[in-house]
């Protein structure tokens, strides 16, 4: 805390010039993120109450909400989305919490960490497709046990995925949200006195899990609270995963709204706007519920510590949490492997475990068409990640990220306000203002979502760099800018590249914003892949879902290889 005032070589000495400059970068970021969200929300609220002059909406009315209320099974859609938000977040967090409690600081922990980290780079849609190919009635799991155990010679007539309760959808979200929550927990761990607390609670006789939950978890949870709320918001309003794994009749609310938004009948926009407001209310309700659950959890935890019960033997609990973590990672990887097999499968009749023949036909058929989408994905992702990286460096250098709670909250805003609710408004606004779907516009919208992740990824290594290097350089007469360019950035090459790769992956995996702002004229691998989900061409889905995974993976590969090449002769820089 004290270091905030003086010994902070991370930002230049405060003379007039840099101060005015400091306002600019954090100002730019605030405006860049805050303004579109506010404008987008306004662009959603207006039409919801009947105001959209371009389509003849000139007076206030509640008709569109009335129309919304008459949509069949609306309540069911709402309830499924709400339950998905709470259950997905609750289960993911519980497993991550118990696993961290049982294993933080052990070798098993770093082993699972290596297994789970790559999962973050896999787009949601690709992971969801992988899951479909595993658990569908004709999926790999069923083939493994058929006809031997089940007696089925043809796939059973089960509604999986797209089961009416949304269980497959929740599973698909959980396997992707667990790695996210795990990695943010990992980032927060160094800031809590883990080892001391472990020794202390063990010396008082507490089991690993219980001791950790009482002594460390409350401190840790405080640090990961915003990401947890981001998961609540995401799970309550997700579109791509819900389209692939979620129930169909009725679909979760966000999927139905997306359908109305994309409807060729432009008057449906009013209904869609009213729906987007309902979505906003739904997400808010889920967050309020989560706040209440937090209270319940904290009371339970206080009960637990007050009771003094030690639960010294918690091996079963620990190992179950570890098993769930490993299993979910294995599911995703196995799903990807199944996608790969399907993408090169010739004839593959049902109970056979492997295809009768292999062929490159699906790839040869898909690649010529996919070329445009791949180029667009890469150019969008690399430009948005590069701009975001520059902005993030500027922000961190000037210490703008520390300018209080405001900056942190604004950075998280795009992760906490459901995309649906403001991107649609942005689209309406841009159409009203006469902007056609264009690359710069889409790039700008991508930047809103990419920037927070890039800043979050870069800020920890940025602050961990030993400040004495800079003090030393300043003593040698270097200017703050020279220190940044010659000392700090070269030393943080790896962290910068990783942040770039994270931004790249986020942009490459964005579905809804690309769909709405691209308006069908700009397509990426992700929009193409999700569009295939309604058809049944498993080979094409395999190809696209793999491409969707490979593109961001390329970013991470470059991020890990470049430092090796750049610093061939520098052992300390290679890690």
């Amino acid at each position, binding site marked *: 805390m004290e270091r905030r005032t003086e010994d902070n070589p991370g930002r230049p000495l405060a003379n007039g010039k840099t101060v005015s400059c400091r306002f600019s970068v954090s100002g730019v970021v605030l405006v860049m993120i805050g303004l579109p969200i506010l404008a987008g929300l306004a662009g959603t609220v207006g039409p919801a109450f009947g105001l959209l002059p371009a389509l003849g909406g000139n007076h206030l009315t509640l008709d569109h909400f009335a129309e919304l209320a008459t949509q069949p099974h609306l309540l069911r859609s709402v309830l499924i989305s709400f339950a998905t938000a709470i259950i997905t977040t609750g289960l993911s967090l519980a497993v991550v919490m118990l696993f961290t409690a049982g294993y933080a600081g052990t070798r098993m922990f770093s082993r699972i960490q290596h297994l789970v980290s790559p999962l973050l780079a896999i787009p949601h849609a690709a992971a969801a497709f992988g899951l479909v190919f595993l658990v569908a009635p004709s999926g790999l799991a069923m083939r493994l046990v058929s006809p031997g155990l089940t007696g089925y010679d043809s796939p059973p007539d089960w509604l999986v995925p797209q089961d009416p309760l949304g269980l497959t959808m929740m599973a698909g979200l959980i396997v992707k949200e667990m790695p996210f929550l795990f990695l943010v927990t990992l980032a927060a761990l160094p800031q809590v006195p883990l080892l001391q607390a472990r020794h202390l609670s*063990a010396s008082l006789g507490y089991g690993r899990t219980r001791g950790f939950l009482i002594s460390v978890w409350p401190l840790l949870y405080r640090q990961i609270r915003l990401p947890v709320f981001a998961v609540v918001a995401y799970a309550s309003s997700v579109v791509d995963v819900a389209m692939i794994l979620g129930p169909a009749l009725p679909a979760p609310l966000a999927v139905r709204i997306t359908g109305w938004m994309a409807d060729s009948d432009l008057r449906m926009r009013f209904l869609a706007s009213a729906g987007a407001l309902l979505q906003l209310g739904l997400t808010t309700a889920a967050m309020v519920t989560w706040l209440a659950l937090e209270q319940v959890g904290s009371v339970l935890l206080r009960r637990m510590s007050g009771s003094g019960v030690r639960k010294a033997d918690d091996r079963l609990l620990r190992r179950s949490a570890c098993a769930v973590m490993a299993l979910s990672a294995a599911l995703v990887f196995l799903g990807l492997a199944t996608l790969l097999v399907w993408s090169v499968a010739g004839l593959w009749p049902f109970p056979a475990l492997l295809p009768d023949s292999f062929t490159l036909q699906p790839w040869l058929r898909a690649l010529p068409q996919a070329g445009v989408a791949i180029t667009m994905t890469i150019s969008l992702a690399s430009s948005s990640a590069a701009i975001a990286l520059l902005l993030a460096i500027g922000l961190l250098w000037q210490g703008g990220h520390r300018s209080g709670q405001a900056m942190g909250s604004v950075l998280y805003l795009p992760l906490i306000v459901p995309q649906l609710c403001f991107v649609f408004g942005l689209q309406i606004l841009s159409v009203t203002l006469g902007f056609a779907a264009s690359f710069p516009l889409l790039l700008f919208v991508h930047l809103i979502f990419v920037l927070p992740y890039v800043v979050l990824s870069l800020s920890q290594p940025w602050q961990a760099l030993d400040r004495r290097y800079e003090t030393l350089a300043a003593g040698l007469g270097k200017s703050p800018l020279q220190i940044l360019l010659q000392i700090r950035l070269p030393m943080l090459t790896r962290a910068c590249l990783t942040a770039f790769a994270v931004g790249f992956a986020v942009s490459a995996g964005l579905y809804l914003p690309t769909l709405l702002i691209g308006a069908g004229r700009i397509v990426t691998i992700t929009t193409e892949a999700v569009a295939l989900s309604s058809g049944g061409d498993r080979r094409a889905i395999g190809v696209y879902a793999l491409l969707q995974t490979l593109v961001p993976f390329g970013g991470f590969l470059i991020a890990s290889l470049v430092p090796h090449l750049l610093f061939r002769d520098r052992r300390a820089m290679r890690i």
Partner: protein
Amino acid sequence: MTPDTTHGLHLDAICIALDGRTLLSLSTHVQPGEILTVMGPSGAGKSALLAYIGGFLDGAFTGCGRILIDGDDLTGIAAEKRRCGMLFQDPLLFPHLSVGGNLLFGLTPSIARRDQRRRMVEQALIDVELEGFFDRDPATLSGGQKARVALQRVMLSAPRLLLLDEPFSKLDSDLRQQTRRLIFARAKSAGLPVVLVTHDQADADAAGGPVIVIGEDSRR
């Protein structure tokens, strides 16, 4: 003379090594209420000795030898089942719990009724002149008050022995004497064998028990 292993702490042929280099080896016996002082320069393995007794020796070290308390063999038992109370350099009060919450965390689960638990904690606070501190935020306490809360937390857990890892080194000299006197008195009246690791000769003198100097190959 064969040592009496049915009472007190018996350290039987303990040795601690780092990278194959033996840091210390010792055999000794600490009577209930007696304080064994272990002195030596930094890096001599003093803290490793405590960690070995407590059951959380870092994987980089290797330890051998048996630890017996009142005739029970603790060697190989998980740290959380040994009931070795530890006091560290820092009081390590949990910042998110109240003073009373910290003590409830320590209080042995054999007392199950909530009102009784609360009463015992209130009494423990009175015993160290901290009456009415139950709901206080630990962050608002003075250094000496924190040390006393940390002591009571470990005493309430009904430990079988106490391990003190330079618990006075961060206190100024007045406070140091007071705290030292209090901790020693409490350990003696509870009849606990104590192992104290310290740099400070005054600590050893105040402890009044046997002293082992390690890392210099000399023993008194």
